[in-house]
C-alpha cells in the first residue's frame, strides 16, 4: 500500500471529486460563467483541505455542461492553491491522450504539489471525446489497454523502449520530468460490470470503482472479481487499494438532503443522458444498502461503514457537484464532512 501512498493505520481515505459540472441551476435556470465555476472549484479544493479531506479529484468530460476538459491544468492550479491534500484525476480519459504527455503532466503536478499527484485512467463513459479528439471508437477496448500498459511502464521504468499499435514506438526514451519520488500512484477507473474490474486485477493496478446508485451489494462481484484476478495474475490483493465513488449530498436531515439533491441529480441526468432521475428510485436512496450517497450525516456514516464492511476499500470518492450544485451548498457539504463524517469513519476504520 505504501507504493500507492496509502496508510491504512489512519483509516479509510475520503476524497471529493468533480467533472467540472456546468449545467444551469435547475432551481433558477441561471448558469454560472465557466470562469467562475473553475475558480469556485479551486476554492472548494482549499476548503476540502482545511476540512481534513484526504483527496481532491478533477475529471475531464468533453461535452456541453462541463468546464474542466483541461483537467490537468485545473489540477495544476489546485496544486499551487493547496499544500497537503492529495490530487488526482477523476478520471483522465487515457484513450484520447498520449500516455507520455499524460505522464509528463502529472509528474509536473506532482512536483508543483510536492508529491501529491495521482492518475486515475479511464475510458470515459461518453463517446464525445473520441469524436472530438479523433480517436476511432471501433478500437475503444484495445486502445485503452495498450495506453494503460504504456503508462504503467513509464511509471515503473527509467528508459522506455516500447512498441504498439496506436502510438509511435519509443527507444530508450526518458520521460521527463520525473515525479518527486520516482513514481506516481496510477489507478484504473472501472464502471459497474466485472469485466473491466477483472482487467484491472490482471494488470495488478489499483481500482477506482464507480457505484453511482442502486444496491451497493450489486458491486460486490466486481470487487471480488478484481481481487481474484489480481491473485491469479500473481499480485497480492492486500497490496492493491480499491476506491469506490458515488454521487454525494449530505445535509442536517434526510428531508433536507433529498430536497437539496433531487433538482440537481434530476436536472443533471436530464441534461447529460436525456432522461431524468425517477423519484421512486431516489426515495429509496437514503437506505444504508443503497450506494447513492444522499442523506443525513448519520445515514452517510452508516452507508460508508456498511460499504467498508462489504468491500474493504481504502478510499471513498464523493462526486459533490453533479448537476451543478451551487458553491454555497458545496461549502455546507464540506463542513458536515469535516466536522462529523470524517471523525466517525476514521475512528471505525483506523487499523
Amino acid at each position, binding site marked *: 500500500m505504501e507504493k500507492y501512498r496509502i496508510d491504512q493505520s489512519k483509516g479509510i481515505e475520503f476524497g471529493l471529486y468533480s467533472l467540472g459540472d456546468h449545467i444551469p441551476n435547475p432551481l433558477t435556470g441561471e448558469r454560472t460563467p465557466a470562469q467562475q465555476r473553475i475558480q469556485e472549484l479551486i476554492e472548494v479544493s482549499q476548503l476540502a483541505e482545511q476540512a481534513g479531506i484526504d483527496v481532491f479529484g478533477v475529471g475531464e468530460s468533453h461535452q456541453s455542461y462541463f468546464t474542466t476538459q483541461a483537467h490537468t491544468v485545473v489540477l495544476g492550479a489546485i496544486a499551487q492553491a493547496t499544500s497537503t491534500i492529495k490530487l488526482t484525476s477523476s478520471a483522465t480519459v487515457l484513450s484520447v491522450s498520449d500516455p507520455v504527455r499524460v505522464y509528463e503532466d502529472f509528474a509536473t503536478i506532482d512536483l508543483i504539489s510536492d508529491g501529491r499527484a495521482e492518475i486515475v485512467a479511464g475510458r470515459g463513459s461518453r463517446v464525445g471525446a473520441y469524436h472530438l479528439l479523433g480517436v476511432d471508437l471501433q478500437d475503444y477496448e484495445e486502445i485503452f489497454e495498450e495506453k494503460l500498459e504504456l503508462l504503467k511502464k513509464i511509471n515503473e521504468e527509467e528508459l522506455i523502449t516500447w512498441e504498439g499499435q496506436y502510438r509511435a514506438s519509443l527507444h530508450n526514451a526518458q520521460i521527463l520530468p520525473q515525479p518527486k519520488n520516482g513514481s506516481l500512484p496510477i489507478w484504473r477507473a472501472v464502471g459497474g460490470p466485472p469485466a473491466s474490474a477483472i482487467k484491472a486485477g490482471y494488470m495488478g493496478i489499483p481500482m477506482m470503482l464507480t457505484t453511482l446508485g442502486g444496491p451497493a451489494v450489486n458491486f460486490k462481484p466486481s470487487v471480488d472479481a478484481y481481487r481474484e484476478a489480481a491473485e491469479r495474475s500473481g499480485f497480492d490483493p492486500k497490496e492493491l487499494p480499491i476506491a469506490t465513488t458515488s454521487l454525494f449530498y449530505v445535509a442536517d436531515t434526510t*428531508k433536507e438532503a433529498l430536497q437539496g439533491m433531487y433538482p440537481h441529480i434530476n436536472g443533471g441526468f436530464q441534461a447529460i443522458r436525456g432522461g431524468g432521475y425517477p*423519484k421512486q428510485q431516489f*426515495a429509496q436512496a437514503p437506505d444504508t444498502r443503497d450506494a447513492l450517497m444522499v442523506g443525513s450525516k448519520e445515514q452517510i456514516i452508516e452507508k460508508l461503514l456498511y460499504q467498508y464492511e462489504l468491500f474493504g476499500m481504502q478510499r471513498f470518492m464523493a462526486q459533490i457537484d453533479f448537476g451543478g450544485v451551487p458553491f454555497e451548498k458545496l461549502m455546507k457539504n464540506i463542513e458536515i464532512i469535516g466536522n462529523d463524517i470524517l471523525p466517525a469513519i476514521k475512528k471505525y476504520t483506523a487499523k
Partner: protein
Amino acid sequence: MKIVALAGSIVGSKTKTAISKVVEILQEKYPEHEVTLLDLAEYNMQFSDGRNYFEYDGDTKYVTETIMSADAIVIGTPTFQASIPATLKNIFDLLPVNAFRDKVVSMVVTAGTSKHYLMIEQQLKPILAYMKANIVPTYVFIEEKDFLRKEIVNDDVLFRLERLAEDTVMVADAFAEIRAKKDAEYDF
C-alpha cells in the same frame, strides 16, 4: 398530452395506412391532445453509434427527440422475417435504456399472414418492457386482406383501432394520475 404515432417501416403502405387511421381517430376523439405522426419513410435516419440521442443532427435528432417528448406512443410495425423491421429496431437502439419510463406504448401490427399473430409478443413487447414502457396489453393485428387500395376495409379492424386509440389515452391518463399521486407523497 403529447401522443406520437410512429410508422416503423420505410417501405410498403399497410403500416402507414393503419397508423394514419389511428392518427385520424385520435384527432377526432381527442382534439385537446397533440398528435404527431412520424412516418420513418419520410426521414433519413442514421444508424445508432452510441451517442446520446440529442447529439445527432437533422432527422435523427428530430425523430428521437419527438419520441422522447411524448407521453404516449402508438407504434405501427410491419412484420419482416417474423420480426420488426430493422428501421424500427434502430429507433430503439438510438434511445437510452429507460427511454419509455413513464410513457405509455401501444401497438398496431401488419403482416402478410395470420401465422405472425404472436410476433409482437415475442419480438416487440420484450424490447418495450426492457425500455420500461407501460404497455397497452391489447394490440391490433391487421392482415393483407384487410386492406384494399390503401384503405382498411375490415370493420372489425376499424372498431379495434378505435378501441386501441381509446385504450392508449385511457392508460396514459391513468398512469399520469397514479404518478401524480405517488409524487405527492415525496417531500423532495
